[in-house]
């Protein structure tokens, strides 16, 4: 096979087997930036799977990265369980009100019905359409928020973190129902021919400590990942912010790849868990990708590869988190180009260049 003609699927498969590849995999995590690619307003994505698919397909074709991830905002699952989400005309949606305000109402929460509730049907349609168009060449994933994070949107973040100390049993009940929703949605995503992509921002060490992570995040992550593995899919787990103290637990939970933010050290992650999981990260989404120039992006990519390019279980060059909507196209292109320029095996001379 000609290396120059590798599709993302071929590249990822060869990389996993330790066979030659043309370049490292590269994933600028595109969410609502896809709207900009087709000149749409972010709010047009609401309830419109066809448009989300069109945008994601166009974005992939424009930049040629290695994973498509259908994602508009973090609240899809919680919204389907009753949380209220506000949709500004042309910016990312945000949580307006949690589904419940008191622990008395936890018993009223029901796991989602993915074919019916909230915006899940349109997101599933987006995945289905994208996989129909591109599934033969690139992995298509759908974002699934993990139980502890969904729980925070169900009862409010401040409420939830207080409950971790005041009423752990209530937190477990919330996480349990959130887990059932995540499992059902994951099953629907897999049935659509895609892979669930896990995100758990509230489990960040910027919010809860390793003790709480172990008690409230870990068991549910572990069960969710076990379910997805049972369906024959591998799992990428993203947690924002600081994560150093929970890397081992992220690996213990069964993740095949951990995606880390710019608050965490790639070199540190490689050293700690690089022999257990693939590492993905961590070009700064705002400082570099949104506000930097293409030269800054190239420098940041080289720095990431220098830190993690040789990680035993592999490395994916990625943004530290979902890209801000207005990330310049030139910077996304620079990211993919820089990875191609470094090539494979990694060209140490290119890495050591301090100019751009």
């Amino acid at each position, binding site marked *: 096979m000609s290396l120059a003609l590798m599709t993302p699927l071929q590249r990822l498969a060869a990389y996993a087997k330790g066979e030659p590849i043309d370049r490292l995999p590269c994933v600028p995590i595109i969410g609502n930036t896809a709207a900009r690619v087709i000149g749409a307003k972010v709010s047009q994505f609401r309830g419109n799977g066809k448009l989300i698919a069109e945008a994601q397909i166009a974005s992939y074709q424009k930049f040629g990265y290695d994973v498509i991830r259908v994602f508009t905002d973090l609240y899809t699952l919680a919204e389907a369980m009753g949380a209220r989400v506000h949709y500004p005309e042309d910016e990312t949606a945000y949580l307006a009100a949690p589904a419940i305000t008191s622990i008395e109402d936890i018993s009223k929460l029901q796991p989602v019905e993915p074919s019916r509730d909230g915006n899940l049907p349109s997101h599933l349609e987006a995945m289905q359409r994208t996989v129909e168009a591109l599934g033969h060449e690139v992995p298509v994933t759908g974002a699934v928020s993990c139980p502890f994070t969904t729980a925070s949107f169900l009862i409010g973040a401040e409420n939830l973190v207080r409950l971790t100390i005041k009423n752990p049993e209530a937190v477990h009940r919330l996480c349990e129902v959130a887990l059932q929703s995540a499992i059902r949605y994951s099953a629907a995503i897999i049935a659509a021919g895609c892979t669930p992509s896990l995100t758990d921002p509230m489990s960040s060490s910027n919010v809860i400590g390793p003790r709480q992570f172990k008690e409230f995040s870990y068991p549910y992550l572990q069960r969710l990942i076990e379910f997805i593995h049972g369906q024959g899919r591998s799992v990428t787990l993203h947690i924002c912010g600081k994560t150093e103290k929970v890397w081992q637990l992220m690996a213990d939970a069964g993740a095949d790849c951990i995606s880390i933010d710019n608050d965490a050290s790639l070199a540190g992650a490689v050293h700690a868990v690089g022999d257990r999981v693939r590492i993905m990260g961590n070009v700064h989404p*705002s400082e570099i990708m949104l506000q930097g120039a293409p030269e800054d992006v190239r420098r940041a990519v080289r720095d990431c590869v220098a830190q993690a390019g040789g990680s035993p279980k592999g490395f994916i060059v990625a943004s530290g988190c979902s890209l801000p909507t207005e990330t310049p196209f030139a910077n996304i292109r620079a990211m993919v180009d820089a990875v191609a320029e470094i090539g494979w095996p990694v060209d140490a001379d290119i890495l050591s260049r301090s100019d751009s």
Partner: protein
Amino acid sequence: MMLKSKESFFIDLSDAVVDMDEERTVTAANAALEAGVDAYDAIQQGLSDGMARAGQLFEEEEYFIPELLMCSDAMYAGLDVLKPHLKQVGESRGTIVIGVIEGDTHDIGKNMVRIMFETGGFKVIDLGRDVPPQRFVDTARESKADIIALSTLMTTTMDGMGTVVKLLSEGNIRDGIKVMVGGGPISPGFAKRIGADGYAVNAAEAVKVALELVGNA
């Protein structure tokens, strides 16, 4: 019975806050009042000291948001007991208008910062979350605030911070009001670029920055 020293009441209060124990904080506050300890001293050297220690544990990553919130619950419970007995109000170190920028409803971080400001001796006006830039400016003008403190967790709403600085300049009141910023996606570089006066990485540091900004470090 041996008489307890004033200091030992302060230590009880401070420890109860650090231990996240609301009930014990209330008991310690009542005990201090009964023994004739000045309410102002009990707040400053007891409760505030406890929150400062909690902030230190947060910086050292021994405590996280849940613990810090529980400490602040205990601190406020103690404050409810002591406040009615304040003889003199201590001199405020300045007035701060705080809030989360429009488009963002994540307010845990902002609430932590507010608590640390209050225990650090500032008068705080909390505008809540999802606050339009103009409201920060109007409120700061009306209250003759020394500092506007802006928070956001989202990359999508960062630009609102720059808007606040711009509005202050356009209103010709930029000189009298310091602007400090913080939150997940914010970096010192970003703070500098939008013309902010200060940046803090977390709630504990925010107090130190605020004190520097009002020349009271």
